[in-house]
């Protein structure tokens, strides 16, 4: 029996090793080509700024997501399901599109400033550290909300019923049910947002306001393009990874399993307190819905006029992107499920690191390193799409892993021994236990992975040949040739396709779980 469980226990470490190799080998290849890795004071200033903005963005996104997720968990209202689905959208926007959407609301001639001026108040400027954090909160608050909402929905209804029969008020419910759940979920949520913000490039540079807002990634651009100093680029990418490792270890130390035990899966929302808490929940929902919907509406509005006048290359590029997205999502889901199930049995910081660090790699160093590694064996252009699929898989896996892990842990704690004693292993365990119980997070995660792989420019720019452009690349080429209206429309198509992929997976998962 023990021997039958073995294949999985070998596959997961092999997978983790493969991921670490994918992160470290390109870095080593770049460092190998360079000479020395000395970092100057300007580099350390970039490190400080990167870490500061990432910490602020992660903390604010996570904290603001708690009341929104709680309101969604305990209130039922018309449009709730639409709002939950819409929560996926901002996260899927390509950075430049998201920035333009935000500017339509918060920019110099945006809605907010027009309203302020109309009321006789001075206009505000979005450019600076606060603008960077605002954009990161816009992009990541929905993801955090969805992940925390999964936590709330996973509190077994038996515990909720017990709490109600014991006459728990809101504060006791928080102490005994909600806080343990948050202790399990929040560190992982904050970790993944921190790491993604650490490597954010276009958002930080565009809204940062000037060279004071120099991130590690920009310093890497400078090293590669301005100075062709590959050693320094590798050094900077190494520092970025090290920050990622520290974050992984911190989150590992802070996470505590909630230990609710198994339930019978009868859906039961938390009791919805009345009075000021009702108004509080309403405020949280309305504010977050407006904050997310207004820039999205601007993206839609900007993209509509040019839809009839798109260049012919958009269609094949869109098809290529969808194919890449589906392949990446399938690979990432399989790999993340394998890792999460193994980590739920015997978690280790190494496993956590392998499943998180791809996010902390520098896109430019990853692309450059893969290019250097592939070039001696094959023309890199001939491998453009496989490499894109591989990189997108690695980059979306951390989200999936983070989404699956808490529920895989609960599954192992609640049903692991029962399944073992029933000799439920391998495929049948997957078929009868894992897939049905994890359908909801699997669907959500696969949707996130597919949509991310649609939108991510990643390394395609370094590898793409003449006729291999993906949709994000076409958008960037259009904006590079004055065609802002066509670019806005191509971006709208990109966002719509991402959203449809996301919605199909997410709704599929929710239906299978119901």
């Amino acid at each position, binding site marked *: 029996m023990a021997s039958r469980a073995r294949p999985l226990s070998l596959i997961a470490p092999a997978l983790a090793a493969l991921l670490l190799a994918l992160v470290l080998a390109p870095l080593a290849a770049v460092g190998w080509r360079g000479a020395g890795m000395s970092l100057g004071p300007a580099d350390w200033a970039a490190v400080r700024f990167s870490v500061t903005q990432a910490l602020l963005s992660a903390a604010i996104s996570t904290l603001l997501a708690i009341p929104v997720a709680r309101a969604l968990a305990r209130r039922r209202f018309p449009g709730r399901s639409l709002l939950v689905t819409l929560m996926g959208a901002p996260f899927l926007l390509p950075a430049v599109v998201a920035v333009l959407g935000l500017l*339509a609301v918060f920019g110099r001639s945006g809605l907010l400033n027009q309203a302020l001026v109309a009321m006789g108040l001075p206009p505000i400027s979005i450019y600076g550290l606060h603008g960077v954090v605002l954009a990161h909160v816009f992009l990541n608050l929905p993801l955090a909300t969805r992940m925390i909402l999964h936590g709330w929905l996973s509190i077994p209804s038996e515990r909720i019923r017990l709490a109600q029969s014991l006459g728990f008020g809101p504060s006791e419910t928080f102490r005994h049910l909600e806080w343990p759940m948050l202790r399990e979920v929040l560190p992982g949520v904050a970790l993944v947002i921190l790491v993604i913000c650490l490597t954010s490039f276009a958002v930080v*540079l*565009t809204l940062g306001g000037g060279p004071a807002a120099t991130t590690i990634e920009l310093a890497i651009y*400078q090293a590669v393009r301005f100075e062709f100093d590959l050693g320094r680029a590798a050094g900077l990418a190494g520092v970025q990874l090290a920050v990622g490792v520290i974050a992984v270890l911190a989150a590992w130390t802070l996470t505590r399993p909630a230990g609710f035990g198994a339930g019978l899966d009868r859906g039961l929302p938390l009791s919805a307190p009345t009075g000021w808490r009702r108004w509080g929940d309403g405020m949280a929902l309305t504010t977050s819905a407006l904050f997310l919907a207004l820039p999205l509406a601007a993206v839609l509005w900007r993209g509509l006029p040019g839809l009839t006048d798109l260049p012919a290359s958009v269609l094949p590029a869109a098809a290529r992107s969808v194919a890449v997205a589906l392949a990446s999502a399938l690979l990432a889901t399989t790999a993340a499920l394998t890792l999460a199930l193994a980590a739920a049995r015997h978690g280790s910081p190494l496993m956590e690191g392998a499943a998180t660090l791809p996010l902390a790699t520098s896109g430019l160093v990853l692309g450059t390193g893969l290019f250097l590694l592939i*070039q001696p064996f094959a023309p890199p252009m001939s491998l453009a799409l496989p490499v894109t699929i591989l990189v997108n898989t690695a980059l979306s896996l951390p989200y999936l892993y983070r989404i699956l892990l808490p529920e895989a842990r609960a599954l192992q704690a609640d049903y692991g021994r029962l399944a073992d004693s029933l000799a439920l292993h391998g495929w049948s365990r997957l078929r009868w236990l894992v897939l049905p119980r994890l359908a909801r997070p699997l669907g959500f995660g696969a949707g996130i992975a597919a949509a991310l792989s649609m939108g991510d420019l990643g390394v395609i720019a370094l590898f793409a040949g003449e006729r291999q452009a993906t949709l994000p690349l076409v958008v960037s*080429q259009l*904006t590079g040739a004055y065609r802002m209206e066509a670019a806005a429309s191509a971006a709208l198509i990109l966002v719509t396709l991402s959203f449809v992929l996301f919605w199909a997976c997410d709704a599929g998962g929710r239906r299978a779980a119901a």
Partner: protein
Amino acid sequence: MQKHLLAAGLLTIAMPALAETPVLTVLTYDSFTTEWGPGPAIETAFEATCACDLRFVPAGDGAALLARVQLEGAASDADLVLGLDTSLTAAASATQLFAPHGKTPKTDLPVDFADPNFLPFDWGWFAFVHDKTKLPEPPKSFEALAASDVTIVIQDPRSSTPGLGLLLWVKAAYGDRAPEIWQGLADNIVTVTPGWSEAYGLFLEGEADMVLSYTTSPAYHLIAEGDDTKAAALFDEGHYMQIEVAGKLASSDQPDLADQFLDFMLTDAFQSVIPQTNWMYPVITPAAGLPEGFDAFRPAKSLLLSPAEAQAVRDAALAEWQAALAR
């Protein structure tokens, strides 16, 4: 049977001949190869004369080109690199990856330009572009701009060639006074974007009064959109030039074909495609003349540092820029 054998024999002879159509590979920036860029028309025109297969390989934006050449080194499949500018040619020559072209063409460039490794194919003047209806009286110099409350959006010199061009523009115009000019401009700068497209997008969205672009940008709006509200502000100091060049790689396995392409580059078939696809000036004025709007904003004075000067002042100019703007 005999016929079949003959046909089979002919086929086997014909097959390798087909496969041996020489391939000329040109490494260039992304926007050159797009369906609305100059690439497709130039490919058709050159292939009609060369009995070869011309392939453009996009390598990201202009700033990424040189890094790509250095990454590939002597193992590169490319025969030519097209799209470097004069702020990069000194560094490019120093890699010793490029071969001399041995040509002395006559061009219509407003300045003298000769480089043993690189031939120019188009050029433009950097300029601040604005909307005439919103900013009817634009500043006439950097100093006037700094003294005004006109807002601008510029590109980062570390990731964008126009950004680097502006750095060299201020340096060429003001020399040791450059830090002072940058300090004056600091409160006019709304933000610094990673590339040209983000900056231009912000300007069109109304985030700034002016954007660093080219004197030919208004011509795009005029010709492609029938919009004559955009204008380029002419500065008294003169305008810095961007000259885009192409060079032959020493490792090329098609050196003769590469030479043939460089000759073709300076003919009307190539040059006449440039204005309305790359929105830059051709280096040899086409027989049909320049399109409408290309003569609307012509600076009286052109500024250009030699490749060696540009290379020499670059790092110090960048440090000054960072110090002045990182308040």
